[in-house]
């Protein structure tokens, strides 16, 4: 199996889908001639030409809507929102138009489109280029929301997203673009299916995107036997895999890269609490970012993001007391 960087896995998945399906088209800002600011569309213009691989003006609303329209007329557009924050100006087209097309056409229209966007912190991009905004899109019926954590899942999930007949939001953790991993191009991953990336017996961590890697690092050094689940899909999330794991371990920790309020992890904790009420060995908890914008300063950004040290502190406390520990910003009186 070849080792690829995540950005290469994405470009390879795009190219493989474009070779397989002539209706797949790719457009976005600087994705053609410049091959994308993160080089996630490398080689596409050269191989597939300017009809199928297009640079757009800096007009997210227009080109997101154009993807919706093209999808209703038989194409499979994959568009790139360079930073997820730029989705703000295009949200109408995704949430209010694209996600409603099937419903408001009484089932006659499909919108097989993928919106790729880079997400997350850790690179020093500051308050307007470091968010995940996962919860924005997760709250819209009609959208599917995926986030890969490594090269394999980037490749396999992106192919699944492009093949899917519904609009898919594909959130790519920026910090992982340069990371290498082995990719089996024959490995299929399904939307709505989580991966157990590290088996364990005593505690379940559910994580997404780059938090999966944080959870793995924490698990590798923890004295607790931790099972790590890479959720992969936020909507529709894989209840079966999560429930099976929690049934076994009796303990749940969700690690999320977004502010505490309104996160998708609350859905997981609520569902697990309802399903296993009275059977859990400890309070199900979430480890999140604080309710503040992403700070630029390197030291502060590192504290802002969930990290292995904090994850292990929380887990140690939880194992010892069974009660939900306070997050660091409460412990430190902020």
């Amino acid at each position, binding site marked *: 199996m070849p080792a690829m960087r995540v950005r290469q896995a994405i470009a390879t998945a795009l190219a493989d889908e474009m070779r397989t399906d002539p209706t797949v088209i790719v457009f976005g800002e600087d994705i053609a001639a410049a091959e994308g600011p993160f080089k996630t569309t490398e080689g596409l213009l050269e191989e597939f030409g300017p009809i199928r691989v297009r640079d757009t*003006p800096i007009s997210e609303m227009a080109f997101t809507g154009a993807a919706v*329209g093209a999808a209703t*007329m038989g*194409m499979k557009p994959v568009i790139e929102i360079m930073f997820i924050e730029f989705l703000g100006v295009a949200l109408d087209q995704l949430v209010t138009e694209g996600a409603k097309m*099937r*419903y408001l*056409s*009484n089932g006659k229209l499909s919108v097989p489109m993928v919106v790729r966007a880079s997400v997350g912190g850790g690179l020093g991009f500051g308050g307007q280029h470091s968010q995940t905004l996962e919860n924005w899109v997760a709250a819209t019926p009609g959208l599917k929301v995926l986030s890969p954590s490594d090269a394999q899942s980037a490749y396999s999930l992106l192919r699944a997203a492009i093949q*899917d007949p519904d609009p898919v939001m594909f959130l790519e953790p920026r910090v992982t673009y340069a990371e290498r991993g082995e990719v089996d191009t024959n490995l299929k991953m399904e939307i709505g299916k989580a991966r157990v990336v590290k088996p364990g017996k005593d505690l379940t961590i559910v994580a997404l995107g780059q938090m999966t890697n944080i959870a793995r690092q924490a698990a590798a050094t923890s004295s607790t036997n931790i099972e790590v689940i890479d959720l992969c899909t936020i909507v529709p999330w894989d209840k079966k895999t999560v429930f099976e794991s929690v049934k076994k371990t009796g303990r749940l920790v969700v690690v999320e890269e977004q502010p505490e309020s309104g996160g998708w992890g609350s859905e997981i904790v609520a569902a697990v609490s309802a399903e296993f009420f009275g059977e859990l060995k400890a309070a199900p908890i979430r480890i999140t970012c604080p309710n503040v914008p992403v700070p630029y300063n390197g030291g502060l950004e590192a504290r802002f993001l969930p990290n292995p040290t904090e994850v292990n502190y929380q887990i140690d406390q939880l194992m010892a007391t069974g009660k939900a520990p306070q997050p660091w910003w409460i412990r430190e009186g902020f």
Partner: protein
Amino acid sequence: MSKGLERRKAILSDPIAQFERAVEIREFENQVNALFASGTIRGTTHLCLGQEALAIGLASVLRTDDPVSATYRSHGIALALGLTTESAMAEIMGKSTGCCGGLGGSMHLCDLELGLLPTSAIIGGGMPIAAGAALAFQIQGNDRVAVAVFGDGATNIGAFHETLNLAAIWKLPVVFICDNNVYAEYSRINLTTPIEDLHIRAESYAMPHYALDGMDIDVVREGIQSAVDRARSGGGPTLIEAKTYRFAGHSRADQALYRPEGELESWKSRDPLLLLEERAKRIGKMRESDVADLKARIAKEIEATVTLCQGAPEPSAKTMFENIWSRKVSQ
């Protein structure tokens, strides 16, 4: 041939059928207004009274495989394109026999067979989608044309400018039709917009543009045909500004008390129905008694439609969970 397609074919060239359709739209809207006023229908509605000639002119020029992305004020466009009065009225009443199964309502009409994309209730929302449909046609190499119809208010929203620029730079086969009915919701267009002729905004996108008299169906047809021909033959997009007038308020809650005195009356002297009637008499040789008979017949038909739709079944709760995704996923 479905009833919708037959209805579409009927209005392609026959001046009497075009007049008849205009009478139908007028009567339909008046009935909708009355049903809302009496509380028979819930929610809100946006009437197209005074804008019938544009709807019928547009429908008579387009092919049924040319998709139209229109707005929440599109009962007239939907009926002109061929949607049956039963399908439209049932939808507005929220009945299962409506074109969206009763889950859309007045602002969300749709019939793909006739080229009617789901109408958007977001100002400017349909414009990028029409451009995207046109992008698909360009890539597929066919000669279909996409159309976006939107109001004067949409010319101040970002989607308008972004879409015009994108369509121009990609030379997309799309026709943009601004139905300038003078009022953007409750505000006269001059209060919110520093220019009178909205079509000139296309100048900055190097796009052909012109205004036309939206009350006169022959002018409408000629103007739209020319833009459609350009788009179909690879000449790219056009912005047309149809000068019309909204005879009713913005929505059912609006009495439109803000109009300058005499403005409505002045526009009503060029009511598209009067012009279409005169034309039907001139070209179609209709007689005065024919006109009276036609109006009486349509009034009866719409009344029968209302009765029929009132008796139509409500949608089941199950339908609420359908058509979210391609395949139902239990969540």
